[in-house]
């Protein structure tokens, strides 16, 4: 059978660095043949690195938050804001809520976003004089990492009786922990007179998440 139009063979430009072509050229097959399989080699960047998910960093930040008495390290969170930790935490929160019979994945994601916009707005108004280095991305990251005590609470609440006084008390304890973490991370640059004001805003945010867990 004769083609009416010439089908040019697929050619990859070898002048582009880091290309697969350099080590394992893609075997050229004729037209109408299925492509031969090419196995990935070591030159490609690993998937997690391409997605900018640094699990080691997430783990270190998690450990720094987990210790309830020693303060979280603001510097660690300041330069390396990332969203993969918060995303994992919100997913874990959703999974624990699912175990309790409530489908709250979208709700939690949406509320984290709105809450961080709210906190960013309040914080930017306070620290306008000194050019703080909190931008919206970093605020979202901090609110997300502050969700870790909420995630633990949602796991713990699976074993507590519903609707009793005990779960309210435990909820308040975890909300205070979250507020402490978030304020310490957020207000590391702000003056002391505003710490209480920012702490109240963070407290409101995490109380809303405790509502999702308790009820």
């Amino acid at each position: 059978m004769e083609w009416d139009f010439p089908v040019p063979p697929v050619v990859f430009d070898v002048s582009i660095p880091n290309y697969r072509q350099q080590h394992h050229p893609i075997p050229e097959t004729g037209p109408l043949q299925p492509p031969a399989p090419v196995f990935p080699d070591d030159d490609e960047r690993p998937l997690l690195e391409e997605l900018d998910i640094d699990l080691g960093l997430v783990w270190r930040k998690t450990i720094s938050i987990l210790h309830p008495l020693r303060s979280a390290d603001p510097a660690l969170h300041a330069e390396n804001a990332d969203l993969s930790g918060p995303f994992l935490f919100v997913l874990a929160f959703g999974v624990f809520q699912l175990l309790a019979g409530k489908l709250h994945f979208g709700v939690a994601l949406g509320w984290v976003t709105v809450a961080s916009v709210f906190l960013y707005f309040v914080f930017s108004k306070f620290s306008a004089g000194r050019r703080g280095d909190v931008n919206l991305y970093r605020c979202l990251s901090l609110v997300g990492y502050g969700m870790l005590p909420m995630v633990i609470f949602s796991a713990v609440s699976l074993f507590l009786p519903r609707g009793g006084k005990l779960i309210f008390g435990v909820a308040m304890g975890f909300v205070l922990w979250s507020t402490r973490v978030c304020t310490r991370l957020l207000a590391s640059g702000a003056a002391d007179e505003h710490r209480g004001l920012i702490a109240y805003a963070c407290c409101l945010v995490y109380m809303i998440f405790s509502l999702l867990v308790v009820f």
Partner: protein
Amino acid sequence: MAAMNSELGGYAGRPPNAQPNPFESAMYGAGPGLIRTGLGAYGEKFLGSSSEFMQSNITQYLSDPQYYFQVNSQYVRNKLKVILFPFFHRGHWTRITEPVGGRLSYKPPIQDINAPDLYIPLMAFGTYIVIAGYALGVLGKFTPEALTLQFSRGLVGWFLQVVLIKGLLYSLGSGEAPLLDIVAYAGYGFAGTSLAMLARIFWSYLYYFIMPWFCLCTGVFLVKTMKRVLLGGPRSYERHPSRNHYFLLFLAVVQFPMLFWLGNISA
């Protein structure tokens, strides 16, 4: 926006022999770097403290929002005492002015207890939402959708208060008070409402004592503040004294149904 479009377009149609540089950058394609720069840039642009958007577009209609957030915790505590128990406020209600650049301008809230601020209304609104959520939960009717509905109701209530106060000021002649001032005054009512709802969670009958008290307090606070705002206006206050008094009385009385409607969450 154009930058985002060109990056996404480059990802979709990949030419085999383009320049090497676009393939190398971490922001190539819709990756996490895009989110980081996008959020940082747009957050700063629209909501940030030194954003041009705020300074150029909004200042035509609103006064500088930065003024309303110059607060500290001492101011917040004292202002809450004034809002919730205005009868015990010993001292004058006028705002202190200072000459700045040839014009008289009001001192910021951090130096003047009578200046309006936007931090307390915002936090009071947030507290109202949280306590409404807890009240819904105690009644067994909590769903995220119900909470969002309550949020919208709160916004409508705040807007109605703003319209009410603005209408009052227009009809009495000094309608050029800054809009953010009026938004702040309207939002102060949420503080009393939140406290009354908190009391309702613990003992439902307490609500029917505390809520009228806070309605009265909010009414008195608004009346006293509006009197000062009217006095500061250009037209003379004494021209229609009885009309002024009736309007102010109306403002105080209408707080009752308004705040009761806001605090009622069984619907």
